C-alpha cells in the first residue's frame, strides 16, 4: 500500500523545517499544506485538537504532533536508510538529552527578546542566548556534526535556527562567528547538505521579514 503523507506547516516555522529536513534526508515524498495560523483550517484543528499547532505530519490519516516526536517517528518508520539516531543506547540518550535541552531553553523566545527589548532585559537575553550556543558548542567539540561523523537528530533539531543568525548579528551588532566559531563552522557544513540548503530560507529574506514582523527599524 502506498504511504500517504501530508505535512501541515508554515513555510517560516523553524520547527516545521526540522520535519522537512528529516523527510528530505530520507527521500520521502509528501504533500505540503501551508497553514494560515491566524485562521486555522478544519484539518489542523482536527489533527491537532490539543494545542492546534504546526507542524503536524499525517501518515495514512493518522496525525503525529511535536517536531522532535515527528522526527523520531520518521526515523523509526523509515529505518532502512539514513538513521538520525545512533544505534548505541547511551549515545541515543545523549542525542535525545541535547535536543530536549535546546528546546527547553526556548531559543526562539530568547532570540525574540534579544531583538525586541532594550537595556538590561536585552543584555540578559543576549547573555542567555550566547550561553545556550556556547554550551552546545562545547557538546559539539571537534566533531563534524552533533551526531558524530554523520548528520543526525541533534543537527536536525538545531540547524533550522541558523536561519536567524543574520537577524541577531545585524540587529545586535555581534558576530556569531566570533562568539561561537565551531557552531558557525558546523552550520555551514550542514548547509552543504541538499536537505538543509533546500529547506532553510535565505538569511537576508528572514531578516527583512523579521523587521516587518516586529515592526523594527
Amino acid at each position, binding site marked *: 500500500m502506498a504511504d500517504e503523507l501530508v505535512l501541515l506547516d508554515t513555510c517560516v516555522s523553524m520547527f516545521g523545517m526540522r520535519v522537512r529536513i528529516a523527510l528530505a534526508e530520507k527521500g520521502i515524498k509528501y504533500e505540503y499544506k501551508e497553514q494560515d495560523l491566524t485562521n486555522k483550517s478544519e484539518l489542523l484543528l482536527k489533527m491537532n485538537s490539543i494545542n492546534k499547532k504546526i507542524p503536524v505530519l499525517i501518515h495514512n490519516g493518522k496525525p503525529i504532533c*511535536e517536531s522532535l516526536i515527528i522526527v523520531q517517528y520518521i526515523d523509526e518508520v523509515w529505518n532502512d536508510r539514513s538513521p538520525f539516531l545512533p544505534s548505541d543506547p547511551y549515545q541515543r*540518550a*545523549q542525542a*535525545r*538529552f541535547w535536543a530536549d535541552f535546546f528546546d527547553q531553553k526556548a531559543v526562539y523566545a530568547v532570540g525574540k527578546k534579544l531583538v525586541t527589548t532594550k537595556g538590561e532585559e536585552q543584555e540578559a537575553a543576549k547573555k542567555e542566548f550566547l550561553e545556550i550556543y556556547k554550551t552546545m558548542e562545547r557538546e559539539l567539540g571537534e566533531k563534524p556534526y552533533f551526531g558524530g561523523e554523520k548528520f543526525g537528530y541533534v543537527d536536525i533539531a538545531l540547524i533550522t535556527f541558523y536561519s536567524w543568525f543574520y537577524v541577531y548579528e545585524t540587529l545586535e551588532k555581534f558576530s556569531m562567528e566570533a562568539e561561537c566559531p565551531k557552531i558557525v563552522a558546523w552550520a555551514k557544513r550542514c548547509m552543504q547538505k541538499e536537505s538543509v540548503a533546500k529547506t532553510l530560507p535565505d538569511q537576508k529574506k528572514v531578516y527583512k521579514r523579521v523587521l516587518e514582523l516586529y515592526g523594527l527599524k
Partner: protein
Amino acid sequence: MAEEVKLFRNWAGPFALRVVWALQLKGVPYDTIYEDLSEKSSLLLHYNPIHKKVPVLVHNGKPLAESLVILEYIEETWKQTPLFPEDPYERSTARFWARFGDDQLMPSVFNVFIKQGKEQEEAIARAQGDLKYLEEELRGKKFFSGEKIGFLDLAFGWVANLVSVFEEIQGLTLIEHEKYPLLLAWIQNFIDAPIIKESWPPRDKLITKYRARIEFYSSKEAAKK
C-alpha cells in the same frame, strides 16, 4: 561483566519515581543515592553539570539525565518487560502525551493549588480541560499502556502520586468522581500494583513537604498583587 547501576534521587521526586518504577518493573538491580537538593553532592554536579538536577542514572560510570530520556534508555538497554508500545505510531502518541503531561498538565495542576480567587477559578477550568484528555485516553483501557503498566503510566504516575496530596493540603478536589471516573479507576489500579506500591513515598512526609512548597508558592503568588 558486572553491571553497575546507580540512581541519584531525592526521596519525594516524582520524576525519579518514574525511573525507580521502570527499573523495578524490569527487575534491574541498582543502588540508590539520596540527594539533599539544598546541598547537592559534588558527584551529582559532576554527573549532571547541565541541569544539576535529579534523577540521574549512572550506568557503568556513564551518566544520564532527564527522566523521560532515561526511560527510553532503560527500555533500549534492558529488553525484558517492554514498557513502550512496539508500533511506532503508538510510541509517538505515548511520547506526545508524556510531554503534554510534563509541559502542560503539570503546571496547570500546580497552579490550581497555588493561585487564589479568580485566577484559581481559571486555573481549575484549565486543569480540568487538560485532565479530560487523560480521561478520554483511558477509554476502553485499564492502564494508559493497555492491559499492563507501561511508559505512559509511569510518565503520568505523578498524577496518582501527588494530586491527592495537593487536594488534601488545600481542601480542594480537582479530580472529581463524576467527571473523571476512568482516571480515578486508573489511579487506584496504579497505586495497587505491587511494584508501584513498594516504592510509594510515605504520604505523611509528602504532605509535610508539599504543604511547605505550596505555601511558599502561594505566598509568592499573593505578593505579586
